[in-house]
């Protein structure tokens, strides 16, 4: 089979079977790397680093990167569209079903259980983000090293600022923080 089509097929499969967000695509990409040798595990590591340090969903960034490395811009577009195609199809079908069953007491009951659970999952994800951003987790136990004081100070400053200006757009907050990060060598 044509390598371009084969690549698209592999990404379609990844989109179809990677359940639970962007990071779930990584094991699939590792498998593709080992099966076809289209890119090495070291390149994959670089791709993960770049995907995490650029905006956008990580899974989409990764597929674009792999596609670009293989076939340039057409590859980037082909890989990414193949990755998202299964979810667009599946979600449109679910959205249609959901519209017809939204008022059924069974569906309502299920969602009454799901909503507070989702808040719990998100809190768990947030705590990991906090630990990574505000503390030096690797220095746990060494109390002079453990706290990332610059980051904690910035956190308190921005939190106060967000209460003072509650209408502030998230994009503005991100831009301010990025500038402070560069200026103060965070």
């Amino acid at each position, binding site marked *: 089979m044509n390598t371009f089509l084969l690549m698209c097929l592999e990404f379609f499969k990844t*989109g179809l079977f990677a359940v639970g967000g962007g990071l779930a695509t990584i094991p699939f990409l590792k498998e593709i790397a080992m099966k076809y040798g289209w890119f090495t595990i070291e390149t994959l590591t670089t791709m993960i680093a770049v995907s995490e340090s650029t905006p956008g969903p990580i899974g989409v960034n990764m597929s674009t990167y792999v596609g670009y490395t293989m076939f340039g811009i057409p590859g980037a577009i082909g890989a990414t569209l193949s990755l998202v195609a299964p979810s667009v199809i599946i979600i449109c079908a679910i959205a249609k079903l959901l519209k017809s069953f939204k008022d059924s007491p069974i569906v309502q009951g299920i969602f009454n259980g*799901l909503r507070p659970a*989702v808040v719990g*999952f998100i809190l768990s994800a947030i705590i990991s983000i906090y630990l990574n*951003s505000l503390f030096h987790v690797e220095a746990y136990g060494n109390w002079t090293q453990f706290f990332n004081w610059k980051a904690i100070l910035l956190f308190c400053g921005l939190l106060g600022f967000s209460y003072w200006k509650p209408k502030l757009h998230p*994009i503005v907050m991100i831009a301010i923080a990025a500038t402070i990060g560069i200026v103060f060598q965070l």
Partner: protein
Amino acid sequence: MKKLWDLFITWFKMGAFTFGGGYAMLPMIQKEVIEKHHWATEDDIMDYYAIGQVTPGIIAVNTATFVGYDVAGVIGGIVATLGVIAPSLIIISIIAGLITNFSELEIVQHALKGIQVAVCVLMFHAILNLFKKGVKSILTFFIFLFSFLLAYFTSIPTMILVILAGVVGYVLTILNKKEGTSS
């Protein structure tokens, strides 16, 4: 036509300014989708996130498809998805073509550290909002607490936890109903 353009631009913005995947997109969704365009409610978004955990694909993409579908049907779903992936296509193609050592650049690392802190602040407000909307009774508080503890301290896949929470919600509703009719 205007609606589709709004969908595309709004999700393009969210794709361009979200660092770190599905959950980090939440503050932007609250601002743009819920407050500004009224395309969905907080409850809807929590439902979409829950469904996104048990269906294949990337959560940010699934949420975009859901909101797009609600606004303008299948075409809306496709347009919102193209919007959210377009910034990645542009940015990554440029980086892959020109600056392969992008993530090692010192200026990028410093900016990212700052951005991470901003994400912490934004997520703080986002989770407070969600908590107020989603946890309204003692029962829902316990579902919240157990889901958090299981998600944080065990390695049970979130997909299994979502299915469990759905079953618990369903059973509780049935029990409530029986009590309601018998008394």
